[in-house]
C-alpha cells in the first residue's frame, strides 16, 4: 500500500517553530509530527510514502533518509511548483501512487494528530465497496468547519456543507482518506480542492463513505491546538501504553520525558508535559501543559506553563514563561524574566519582561 501526505507550504501558523524546520519536522510529543503518521502507516503495511510538498523538500528528504532504512519504508517527495490545493497534489503524484496492485491508497493531512486507526478504515473500505472512504470526527462547533452529512447506519455521504449556518450535523472531515486508484481519474492537474470538487462528485454517485474516527483528533497546525493536542495524545498514550509515561513523586498527570534528559530535585512536572532529548531541567522547576524541545535548559526555580520551548533554548532561573509563550529555536530568556504570551523568533535573547501577548522579532 501507498500513502500520500499533504505537507503543503510554509506552515506559517506554526511560526516561529517553522522558521527553523519544515512543519512536519516540528516535534510533537518528542517526535517530528510526520513520524507519528509514517510509523502508523508502516504498522498497517504501507511500503511507500509520498510527501506532497512545495517548500524545502531537500531538508525533508535529508532528515527522513535515516528513517527510510530504520522503518523499512520508502519515502519520496512530490514537489509542487505552484500551490495545487488539496486535490491537485494527488494528480501530480499520480505515477507514484498507481501501481499494478490496484490497492487503495491513503491520503493524510499532515497537520492532524490522532490514534490513526488505519486498520479500521481499511476494513471499513472493504466492507462498503465504494470508491472512497473518509474519516470524520465529531466537533462542538460544526459551524466553523465543513460538515459531512451522512447516512448514520451505512456511513454513505450525502453532501458536504461548508461552514453551515443552521445545524446539519456535527461530523467534520478529519483529513484522513482511503481512496481507490480510480479516484485519481477524477482529478485534473490544476489547483483544486478535494473537499469541494472531488468528494461531492463521488458522493453524488453514492460511492463515498464516511467512518467516525475512534479516539481523539486534533488539527495541531497552530500553537493553541498544538498544546491541546499534546494533552489528548498523552491521555491516549496513558490508555494504550502507559509504560512510556514518566512516574515519580515529582510527576503529576501525564508526562513524557526522553531518557537522555535530566531532571533536578524538588521539581514538579505535569500534567501534559513533553520533555525532549538532551534537556536539562534544574532543581525546583515547575512545568505544566508545555513542550520542552530537544536540548533545552530550564534553569533553577523557573516556572513554565501552557507554552512551547523551542530547540536549544534556555529559560533563566526564576523566570516565568506562560500563556501560549512560544520560543523559537535558540531563544534565551534571562534570569527572573516574565513572559506572558510572548512569541519569540529564533536566536533572540529576552532581557526584559513581556507582560502582554506580543511578538518579539
Amino acid at each position, binding site marked *: 500500500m501507498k500513502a500520500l501526505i499533504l505537507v503543503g507550504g510554509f506552515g506559517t501558523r506554526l511560526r516561529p517553530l517553522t522558521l527553523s524546520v519544515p512543519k512536519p519536522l516540528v516535534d510533537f510529543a518528542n517526535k517530528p509530527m510526520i513520524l507519528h503518521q509514517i510509523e502508523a502507516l508502516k504498522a498497517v503495511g504501507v511500503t511507500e510514502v509520498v510527501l506532497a510538498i512545495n517548500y524545502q523538500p531537500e531538508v525533508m528528504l535529508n532528515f527522513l533518509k535515516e528513517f527510510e532504512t530504520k522503518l523499512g519504508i520508502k519515502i519520496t517527495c512530490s514537489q509542487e511548483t505552484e500551490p495545487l490545493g488539496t486535490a491537485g497534489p494527488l494528480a501530480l503524484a499520480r505515477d507514484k501512487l498507481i501501481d499494478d496492485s490496484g490497492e487503495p491508497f491513503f491520503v493524510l493531512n499532515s497537520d492532524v494528530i490522532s490514534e490513526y486507526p488505519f486498520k479500521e478504515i481499511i476494513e471499513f473500505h472493504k466492507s462498503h465497496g465504494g470508491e472512497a472512504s473518509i474519516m470524520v470526527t465529531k466537533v462542538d462547533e460544526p459551524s466553523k468547519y465543513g460538515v459531512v452529512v451522512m447516512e448514520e447506519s451505512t456511513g454513505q455521504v450525502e453532501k458536504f456543507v461548508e461552514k453551515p449556518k443552521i445545524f446539519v450535523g456535527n461530523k467534520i472531515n478529519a483529513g484522513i482518506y482511503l481512496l481507490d486508484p480510480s479516484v485519481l481519474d477524477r482529478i485534473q492537474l490544476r489547483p483544486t480542492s478535494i473537499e469541494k470538487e472531488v468528494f461531492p462528485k463521488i458522493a453524488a454517485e453514492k460511492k463515498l463513505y464516511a467512518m467516525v474516527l475512534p479516539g481523539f483528533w486534533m488539527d495541531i497546525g497552530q500553537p493553541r491546538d498544538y498544546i491541546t493536542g499534546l494533552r489528548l495524545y498523552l491521555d491516549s498514550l496513558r490508555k494504550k501504553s502507559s509504560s512510556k509515561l514518566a512516574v515519580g513523586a515529582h510527576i503529576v498527570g501525564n508526562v513524557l520525558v526522553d531518557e537522555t534528559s*535530566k531532571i*533536578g*530535585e*524538588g521539581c*514538579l512536572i505535569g500534567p501534559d508535559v513533553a520533555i525532549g532529548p538532551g534537556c*536539562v531541567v*534544574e*532543581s*525546583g*522547576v*515547575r512545568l*505544566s501543559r508545555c513542550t520542552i524541545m530537544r536540548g533545552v535548559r530550564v534553569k*533553577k*526555580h523557573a*516556572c513554565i*506553563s501552557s507554552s512551547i520551548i523551542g530547540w536549544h533554548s534556555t529559560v533563566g*532561573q*526564576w523566570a*516565568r514563561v*506562560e500563556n501560549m509563550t512560544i520560543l523559537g529555536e535558540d531563544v534565551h530568556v534571562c534570569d*527572573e524574566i*516574565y513572559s*506572558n504570551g510572548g512569541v519569540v523568533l529564533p536566536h533572540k535573547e529576552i*532581557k*526584559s*519582561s513581556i*507582560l*502582554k501577548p506580543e511578538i518579539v522579532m
Partner: protein
Amino acid sequence: MASSEERVVAVIMVGGPTKGTRFRPLSLNIPKPLFPLAGQPMVHHPISACKRIPNLAQIYLVGFYEEREFALYVSSISNELKVPVRYLREDKPHGSAGGLYNFRDLILEDNPVFIFCYYTSAKASPLTFVIVERISHIFLLNCDVCCSFPLPEMLEAHRRYGGMGTILVIKVSAESAYQFGELVADPVTNELLHYTEKPETFVSDRINCGVYIFRPDIFTAIGGVSTQRKDRANLRRMSSFDALQSATRSLPSDFVRLDQDILSPLAGKKQLYTYETMDFWEQIKTPGMALKCSALYLAQYRCTSSHLLASGDGTNSASIIGDVYIHPSAKVHSTAKNIVTSSSIDKANLLDGLGDEFVFQQSKFSDSKMGQSIGPNVSISANARVGPGVRLISCIILDDVEIKENAVVIHAIVGWKSSIGRWSRVQVSQECYTYPNMPILLITEILRILHKSFCNAIQWHIRLLHLSSEQAGGDHNAKLGITILGEAVNVEDEVVVVNSIVLPNKTLNMSVQEEIIL
C-alpha cells in the same frame, strides 16, 4: 548629676491617621511612622540620628495618632537608645509650627526629675535632682523624610550663624523643585533670603528638607502669628489685602504652618540660615518611595551599622546580593534538605572514565541546590518564613509573611501575615528597581578601590542609587510603580501578580495585572 551645659531637645512630627492617605493600603494597618524601612520603623531613623546630638535631653514625637499606637514603640526605643522618648498627642492637627507651639511649656520645662521619674521611678527623693536646665536648642524633624540627618554638623553650623533657626536644604533638579518648599540662600553667609512653598514657577533649585534647629525664641514668632490671627478674626473686617489672604484667614488661629507662616515672613531678616546636605534626601509619601528609601537606609547601614546587613554566598545559607536586612527571628531556609541527586552522583562516579567534560557537567548539575537568592534592597521583618528556592529582589517583606518554595518577589511590599504560594510571582511591570542588571557589589568594589575609603564608596553608591532612580524616570508617586499586598493577602500557588495593589484579607487564585483589588 547636675550639668551646667546647655541642653537640646528633638521634636519629630509624626502626623496622624487622617494624613498619609497616599500611603494606603499599608497605612490601613499601622501608623505610617511605624512602617519599617530597612527593617526599622520609619521614625526610628530620625530618632537614632538624634542620638548623635551632643547633650540631647529628650526626644518628643508629636502627632494626633492615639497614644496606644505609639506606646509600645516609645518604651522600647527609650530603653534601647537610653534617651527618653515621649509621645505627645495633639487633639487635632495644628500645623507643624502650631503642633510645636502647643507643647512649648512641656518642651522648654524639660528637667531631670521628670525624666528620672519617667524612667527609673527613682526611689530617692526627687528633690535632690532638681536642677532646672535651660533648653538652648530645639531640633524639629518631619518623620516622613529620608535622609542621613547630619544633625551634629547642622548644630555646629547653627551656632556659628547665630540665628534663630537653621534649615537643612538640598539641591535638586530644577524640574522637581516645584513639589517642595523652594528657597534662596546667601552663598557666603548662608542666610535664608527668600522662601516660597510649592511655587508655580521656578524660584530656586534649593529646597527645604523638613529638618530644622530653632532657638526657643521661635515660640515667640509662632505666638505672634497666632495672636495676629486672633486679632484679625476679631476685627471682622476684610480689607482687600485680607481678601487675597483669605486662605490663611480661614485657618483657625491655633493652626500655624511652619513654611508659609514662619519661614516665608522671616526670610531676609537675618533670623534664619541654611545648612546644605550633600547626602541623599527623599520624601516618603507613597509606598513606592518607602521601597526606595528602604534601599537608601540599607546602603547607609554599610557605613553606620554594617552588623545589621545579612551576608551569605549561598554555600550554607541563602545567597545574598547587595544590601539585605533579615530580622533575626525570620526563617530563611537555605536548603530544603541540601539535596544532591543520589542517582546522578552514582552516575557521575560510574562515568568517571568518560572524560572530564562530561563529569564536570554532571557534577555541576548535581550541585544545583534549592537555596534562595536575596537582594539587592531586601528587608525581611520578624517571623517571616522564606522557603527554599525563593528569589527576592528589591522588596519589603513584613512580619509573619510566608513565602513558599520557588516563589519570586520583585519590587514589591508584602503585607503582614500574607502568604505567597509555590512558584508564584509578585512583581512590577518594568525592572525599574535600582539598577537591576548592574552588579551592585562590583560597583561598590570599584568605588572602594577608587576612593580607598569604604564609607566614601558607600556615599557614592548611595548617590548612584539616587541617580539611577531619577534617570529611570520612574514616577515614584504613581501608585502602580510597585506591587503591594496588604495584610493577610493569600496568593495561591503559581499565580502571577503584576503591578497591582491588593487590599487586606484577599485571596488571589488567578493572575492579575494592573489592578487595584478592593
